[in-house]
């Protein structure tokens, strides 16, 4: 039977990067809901509508824009940015119910966030932050890969970085990652899972050696901050062994990267893997940007291949299966539980379950 984690509705999810939404209609499916995204000429705002014409369900993303209106490619039904149908062919009267759903949108930190659920519950202040994604103090490279796997598998993957040693060995993985204990903290009310792994003395993997120029061993700190369900932040500190932050809290002798993921379920067994690497060093060095983009893309594809395979494998288990957890899974298990609570709360949004 296929491995399927239920979706947590009434949440914000990343549908696209801001730079992906322009005057070309973009189709994305989030939590099983097909969306069409574009950017308004009039005010430059991103618009997200249901990607199905009310008439005969033709995808509006395969149609065209006329100013800020979408003209369905099949029979010309025309919608404005609120999803209201403003023209139907052949007649003056537009049926009262002719409208497509319009989704609340917030553009923040290079992401286009879309609320999936009851629009009346959408609170823009609840969008989790990743300010380094769009900051003069950081240089960011980014991309997205669709994975044919249940989104829960991607959460499992990101909450346990010991897999770097094995799946990404020689890229971002070294022996020390899997061997170093983690500290896990769960902020139950805020729905945040933190996992920390601080390596005092580790090999420097090519991902960091070639971007920072560090030769020799390093102190390597990984601090995960997962804002269930969608936003995952990995605060990464790299420095030559023994180099620590200053007493006043500044940290001028270390290299900092922020590895950001947005985990957006697309449909059953499908997830969008938005990935980004932001750095506070060599910020204007295009060669470093190219290297980090290509190298991280390679690492992401290692995950994509592994999770595509794992999804197929789990789907072939006809009568279910057992899992075995060890200490490295402490954070991942907490994340699963938080997600299960959000799924339950999302299905009855007026009544928060404790």
């Amino acid at each position, binding site marked *: 039977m296929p491995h399927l984690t239920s979706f947590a509705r009434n949440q914000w999810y990343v549908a696209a990067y801001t730079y992906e939404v322009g005057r070309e209609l973009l189709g994305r499916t989030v939590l099983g809901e097909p969306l069409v995204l574009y950017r308004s000429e009039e005010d430059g705002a991103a618009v997200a509508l249901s990607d199905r014409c009310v008439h005969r369900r033709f995808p509006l993303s395969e149609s065209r824009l006329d100013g800020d209106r979408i003209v369905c490619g099949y029979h010309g039904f025309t919608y404005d940015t609120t999803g209201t149908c403003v023209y139907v062919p052949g007649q003056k009267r537009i049926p009262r119910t002719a409208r497509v759903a319009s989704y609340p949108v917030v553009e923040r930190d290079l992401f286009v966030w879309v609320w999936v659920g009851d629009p009346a519950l959408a609170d823009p202040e609840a969008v989790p932050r990743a300010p380094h994604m769009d900051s003069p103090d950081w240089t960011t490279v980014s991309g997205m890969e669709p994975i044919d796997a249940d989104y829960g598998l991607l959460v499992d993957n990101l909450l346990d970085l010991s897999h770097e040693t094995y799946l990404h060995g020689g890229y971002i993985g070294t022996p020390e990652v899997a061997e170093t*204990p983690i*500290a*896990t903290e769960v*902020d139950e009310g*805020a729905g945040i899972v933190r996992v920390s792994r601080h390596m005092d003395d580790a090999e420097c993997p090519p991902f960091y050696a070639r971007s920072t120029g560090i030769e020799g061993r390093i102190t390597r700190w990984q601090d995960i901050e997962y804002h269930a369900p969608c936003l995952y932040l990995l605060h990464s500190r790299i420095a030559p062994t023994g180099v620590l932050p200053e007493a006043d809290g500044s940290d001028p002798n270390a290299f900092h990267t922020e590895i950001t993921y947005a985990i957006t379920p697309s449909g059953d067994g499908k997830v969008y893997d938005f990935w980004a690497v932001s750095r506070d060093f060599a910020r204007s060095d295009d060669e470093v940007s190219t290297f980090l983009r290509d190298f991280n893309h390679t690492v992401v594809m290692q995950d994509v291949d592994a999770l595509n395979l794992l999804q197929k494998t789990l789907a072939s288990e006809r009568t279910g299966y057992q899992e075995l*957890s060890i200490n490295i899974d*402490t954070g991942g298990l*907490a994340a699963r539980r938080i997600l299960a609570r959000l799924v339950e709360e999302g299905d009855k949004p007026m009544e928060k379950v404790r």
Partner: protein
Amino acid sequence: MTGPTGEIYRVDWLPGTDVLHGTCHCGAEHTAQDPVAMWEWMLAHPEGHEPRAAGQGQHRSRQGNGGVLGSRGKRS
């Protein structure tokens, strides 16, 4: 760091061992060698959660050296 409700669960992994050390938001502590058992104890709060008796052994501090994170210059 506390969030809006202050319910923080913490599980440390003692260096050089296979031992997990959990602390519930109520202050109760527990050791286990299996994360499933640890979370079961944690989420059973308040069942099985004895407050630490005053004067009972050495107070275990979450901050400072000696914890699993060593010297931790925490970035905000």
